[in-house]
């Protein structure tokens, strides 16, 4: 250690170590750096004590402050609920029609409904509410049970064919083929007729025979011209929208075995405000209809979007 010397180029003393001609300059760290390093150690020890830090077998040490990310989320959710409490109380008090008439409440209900839809409804109706085979598209203007906001609300509250709910939307199409009401050839004829009235096929011998079978078996629910009936949730057949598909195969399946789609009664599962918000949201998706005039509920059932 005797070969400490002043380095010519820098004017700095060397520490005296030498490895194959490589020397180290003596540029000590400032003392305060050491203190800030100790301060960081002290901070990290304190942090480990007061916050969750050490991983154990099933969870980390709790920390004396008792802070958890779940607890913080809970706090934030409570704060958010408190912020919205006034609005939720207003939505609770207002009827579904009053919400529809008040632009401010309507806006709030649509936004709240969008969030609730993502949690409760997209499993069947899809993220964009476009549905899929067997699950109605809620964006369009074709409604099985009615598309004004009060009717949508009623459907949501009690569901469709929900067992144990007296007010649920109830109907059942006979399984014409399976139960032997129609022969397979007759089923094909009815399918031909349905495809003609929906504009998918040209009239044929089969469809003419089918028209007679249709008149005898189907008009009670689906109407003479296939216009459907919302009272029993019978779909309109003379349009471009199909719940289970409008091709021959799907229609044959439908007429042979019938369909029995079920939707849960959400009135028993969700709070009333959420159901109202969901109804308002679904109504806002572009196919919502105006509330029918009280005297003639069926008259207003014509699609509002028709031009």
């Amino acid at each position, binding site marked *: *250690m*005797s070969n*400490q010397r*002043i380095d010519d180029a820098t*004017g*700095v*003393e060397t*520490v*005296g170590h030498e490895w194959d001609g490589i020397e180290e300059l*003596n*540029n*000590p*760290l*400032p*003392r*305060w*750096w*050491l203190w800030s390093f100790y301060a960081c150690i002290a901070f990290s020890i304190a942090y480990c004590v007061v916050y969750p830090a050490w991983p154990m077998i099933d969870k980390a040490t709790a920390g004396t402050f008792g802070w958890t990310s779940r607890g913080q989320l809970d706090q934030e959710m409570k704060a958010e609920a408190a912020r919205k409490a006034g609005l939720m109380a207003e939505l609770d008090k207002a009827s579904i029609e009053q919400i529809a008439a008040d*632009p401010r409440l*309507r*806006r709030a209900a*649509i936004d709240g409904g969008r969030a609730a839809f993502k949690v409760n409804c997209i499993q069947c109706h*899809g*993220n*964009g*509410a*476009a549905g899929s085979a067997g699950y109605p*598209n809620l*964006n*369009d*203007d*074709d409604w099985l049970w009615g598309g004004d906001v009060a009717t949508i609300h009623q459907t949501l509250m009690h569901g469709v064919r929900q067992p144990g709910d007296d007010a649920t939307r109830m109907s059942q199409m006979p399984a014409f083929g399976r139960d032997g009401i129609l022969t397979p050839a007759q089923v094909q004829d009815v399918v031909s007729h349905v495809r003609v009235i929906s*504009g998918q096929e040209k009239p044929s011998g089969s469809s003419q025979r089918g028209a007679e079978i249709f008149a005898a078996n189907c008009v009670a629910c689906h109407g003479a011209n296939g216009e459907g009936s919302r009272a029993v949730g019978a779909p*309109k057949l003379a*349009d*471009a*929208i199909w719940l289970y598909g409008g091709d021959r195969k799907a229609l044959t399946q439908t007429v042979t075995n019938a369909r029995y789609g079920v939707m849960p009664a959400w009135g028993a599962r969700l709070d009333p405000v959420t159901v109202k918000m969901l109804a308002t949201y679904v109504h*806002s*998706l*572009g*196919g*919502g209809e*105006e509330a029918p005039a009280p005297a003639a509920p069926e008259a207003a059932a014509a*699609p*509002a*979007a*028709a*031009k």
Partner: protein
Amino acid sequence: MTAHDPKLSADHSNEIGLYEKRKGVFPKAINGPFRRFKWLVMIVCLGIYWGTPWIRWDRGPYAPNQAVLIDLAHRRFFMFDIEIWPHEFYFVAGLLIMAGIGLFLVTSAVGRAWCGYACPQTVWTDLFQHVDRLIDGDRNAQLRLQKAPWTASKIGKRALKWTIYLLISFATGGAWIFYFADAPTLQYDFWTGAADPVAYGTTFILTMTTFIFGGFMREQVCVYMCPWPRIQTAMLDEKSLIVTYKDWRGEPRGSVKSAVKAATPLGDCIDCMQCVAVCPTGIDIREGPQIGCITCALCIDACDKAMADVGRPRGLIDYCTLVDAEKEKKGEESTPVLKTIFRPRTLIYLGVWSAIGAAMLFMLGQRARLDISVAKDRNPEFVMLSDGTVRNAYTIKLRNMEERPRTFRVALEGLEGAAMFTDEMDAAAAKRDLTFRVPADTTQRLRIYVVDQRPEERGERHREHGEGHRERGYGEFAFVLTAPDDEGGMDRSETNFTLPEGHGE
């Protein structure tokens, strides 16, 4: 900055200190042209810092009336007549790039002028050093007091000095928050305890950083913490003005008395140590350019005064480029200052800097204060309606960047025969153009449903226009935003319309 620890060379020759205690710096007061310039810069900088948030600016009833305001809560940046929205942040980015290139420009022309005069660390350190002189006296008194035992008088002086440090620090930290909210309101809220906790937290943190960095760390920040001296050192070249001790003129140094006795003539440096005494970072400039030198030029003032006292020409320590130093050594004429400053490198920096500035000014003048953006629904892409028509949905944002409510008209361009309605309208009321009232300085979000006509009409039109007649595919159209008021303005956003069979190609 040699670190000579006397203990090292004495009895503990084998022990090497890994850490070094800070050596106190007690700069002596000096007056001169550079000191006066430093005063001016300090007053301007502190004035801007403390004064700016209090300038009022009338923007009408819908916007804040603070001239410079960074409104983080509402994501707006106000600067006099300019209002920056988040999507226009490139203006701020441009300003930062200009600041960067400005530093290149200044550094390549006049060296570390930023460090020496305008850097907040320098300005506040200077301020605190004046406080030291006010309470403790000048350099020698400060040194004596430092060594003195902790008597009542020393404790009193220290308490008074640190209280003044704290007050300045509090004023500094407290002023920062006024840039982020309405200053008079926040001032009132701050003292009544009604301000947001983040205001108190920010004030506390900045008070403590000012107190510690300005009051105690001082040159340690420049030497050990700041990356800028390293960057600036790399940007200096042989034509940059730096504070230079002209060793060819000063060496060998010696006092006036020893010069009389000396056998060979001595240089001009009388070794009075005034340049070291006045240095705010405590270095000896005679060791040559070094990272601790912030080029504040106070040593030039000190040396000029000493030279005047002994009747020798000024400028033994002076701003000088390396090229000039070589020339002077050979006795050649030095380059004129203007030629030193205006050379290709600085002119290129200046050109780039001005080009960015001019481009930003041009863009500021051109920018529209209304804007439309359209996002087409992807799920579902289209909705089939019962009569065979097709509907597409769009989320539209209308931006009204004026500080007053405006009426906007949104119309369809292309897609003849289609009509639109919003989620707050009845589908039967669909039209080709809709009118919206957008509140001042806000973005309005709309759900727009566009319904196209029946397929047979659509098909005919497609046949008519399809055979290379139009460059646009069938489904392409645009939303056009116009403002029907006197000021006007227009924006459009292209999008497309999806059919079950695709885009109609």
